[in-house]
């Protein structure tokens, strides 16, 4: 029994954190809100250069041969900076199925209705009943949809007119892809929530009203304590889910949904309290707080909201005889 990450895993996390601090500062996220793609110009290539994008592909096939247990902390780091890139879709979901060397992949699996960053993808991994298909970009008919998060461009997808889709996985691979997508998103939400907490602690420590920093008022303290508690008891569920996927635990899907439900709730709680503690300043479009909040709001529903995941757990633990 050992419930901790290895030094290598922590080192990878730290390296990605450093990379993202440099390549994806808040100004890059703000830029993505208005540019043509909703994406950054630098971070994606830097992650590729580090090998992160194909990290789950076996070494023999050109990847790093890592597991989701190595990438779960990377996804969390991406959330911390609100990285506007299909990191989960490409590195966690699609590349292990499709193989290394792709420019930019995205995915539409599980309870998703929209596919993010599809207009800049070279192919989309889609779920068709319990099969996985790979649809190359030329075969895609995309309908843009207006996400509240402008750095997460989403689309509905139609590939029925084309015969270019090829099957790349059957039911087991499909179920695993859904679990990886959910896990990656859960980790990303943890990172978003952590940033929202950190930014709000910082703001509440410096903003003065009534002659004192607002963070010295119990109403603010207790809200932020609740966010910290929510994170404390969400992370272990997400990390355990990663482990369960890696060891092939038969309950992996249930563990993934437990982690998803908890991290979604933690992130929504963090967003709610972050806005309230920031007050009108956080309500301003010019302040970057809303980039994190809106990413929380979108990822909290993409691929199933917390109740969708609770229902998946319910079917496993309540309904069995």
């Amino acid at each position: 029994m050992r419930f901790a990450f290895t030094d290598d895993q922590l080192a990878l996390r730290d390296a990605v954190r450093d990379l993202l601090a440099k390549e994806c500062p808040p100004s890059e996220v703000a830029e993505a809100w208005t540019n043509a793609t909703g994406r950054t110009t630098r971070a994606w290539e830097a992650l590729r250069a580090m090998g992160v994008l194909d990290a789950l592909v076996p070494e023999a096939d050109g990847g790093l041969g890592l597991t989701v247990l190595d990438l779960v902390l990377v996804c969390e780091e991406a959330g911390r900076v609100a990285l506007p890139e299909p990191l989960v879709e490409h590195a966690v979901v699609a590349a292990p199925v499709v193989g290394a060397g792709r420019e930019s992949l995205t995915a539409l699996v599980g309870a998703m209705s929209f596919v993010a960053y599809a207009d800049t993808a070279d192919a989309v991994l889609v779920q068709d009943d319990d099969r996985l298909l790979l649809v190359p970009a030329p075969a895609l008919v995309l309908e843009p949809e207006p996400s509240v998060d402008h750095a997460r461009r989403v689309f509905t997808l139609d590939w029925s007119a084309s015969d270019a889709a090829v099957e790349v996985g059957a039911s087991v691979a499909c179920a695993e892809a859904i679990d990886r997508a959910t896990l990656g998103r859960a980790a990303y939400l943890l990172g978003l929530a952590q940033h929202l907490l950190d930014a709000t602690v910082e703001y509440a420590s410096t903003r003065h009203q009534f002659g004192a920093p607002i963070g010295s008022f119990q109403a603010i303290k207790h809200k932020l304590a609740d966010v910290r508690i929510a994170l404390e008891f969400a992370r272990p569920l997400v990390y355990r889910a990663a482990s369960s996927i890696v060891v092939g635990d038969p309950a992996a899907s249930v563990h993934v949904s437990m982690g998803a439900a908890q991290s979604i709730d933690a992130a929504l709680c963090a967003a709610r309290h972050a806005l309230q503690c920031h007050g009108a300043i956080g309500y301003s479009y010019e302040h970057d707080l809303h980039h994190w909040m809106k990413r929380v709001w979108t990822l909290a529903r993409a691929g199933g909201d917390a109740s969708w995941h609770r229902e998946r757990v319910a079917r496993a633990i309540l309904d069995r005889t």
Partner: protein
Amino acid sequence: MDLTWGPAEEAFRAEARDWLAANVPAEPLPSGDTREGFARHLEWERRLFDARWAVVSWPQRYGGRDASLWEWCIFEEEYYRAGAPQRVTQNGIFLLGPTLFAFGTPAQQDRFLPKMASGEETWCQGWSEPDAGSDLAGIRSTAVRDDAASGWRLSGQKTWTTRGAFCTHLFGLFRSDPSAERHRGLTYFLVPLDTPGVTVRGFGRLDGDEGFAEVFLDEAFVSDDMILGELHEGWRVAMATTGSERGLTLRSPGRFTATADRLVELWRNLGEDASDPGLRHQVVQAVIDAEAYRLQTLATVTALTDGASPGAESSLTKVFWSELDVRLHEIALALLGTAAELEDNGWAKGHQFALSGPIYAGTNEIQRNVIAERVLGLPRR
């Protein structure tokens, strides 16, 4: 206790409903928090005014109908039920208006109220400053006496001024006695935004619309007759206004009962497929809460009609409607599922607006302090 409406009130309701049915734009107007949308809304406000629906509770000479509080409630109910446009003039009509009636000179009333009612002059609120948000008494903007010109020079910065970039006038507090502290020595000024020395910069709210503005004042001159109420007594005058903001006039129950009705419709369309079996009762509870707010308002209006004056109890109301509004929209988003993330789903913008409710007009943390100290009598720190 009689919870029925009399024939005169029913007739008033029928007249309002008929007019609204015939006149409310079939297509929703563009957001009143954009420059184009604001102009379109002003056209609508003008139609309201021409039909004497803009300010029903005001005297006839200012364009009103001398309507009772009951009739005002009825009109609001019908207005929201009809899905009529947002009132972009509300900060003038609902916040400054009552203050002008209470504290304005006859000359000020005649000068400002008719154009406010018609929308010819539009008013924004100049309370908040960068360092005076929840703590309104931290205001630093100054008013310096200019004896030669018989007036005052206003300097400083106001911010989070709703629709400030589109309005013609601002009302707000300025520190007229530099030696006084906190809520003393403030004066309530009325400021045309085209006054030399005034610069307005619009900026976006959470939903991206340019609904906020910063207003910079650099020795902007206003004459003595632009003071509302007594010199240095602005806090007392303003508190009357914030009472209106929190209480009865800003958020009439019709707004929430109409939203609850929409939520019920949404549940009928999507409820069976929702992932959360608890949503059924959450929808019901939201309906119950909207109904509770409506009934509580009826009780308040009865008391006001009997001669009571609104007090710290308005803080109860503000916390309740603002948090109800958030719940109504959060339940809707939960029903929408993955479509919740789309800006055009009919609820996302409302959700973002609802999130401002617990912040503006005094954060709900401040309101709960007021309830604890002034309604319950718990000790201050």
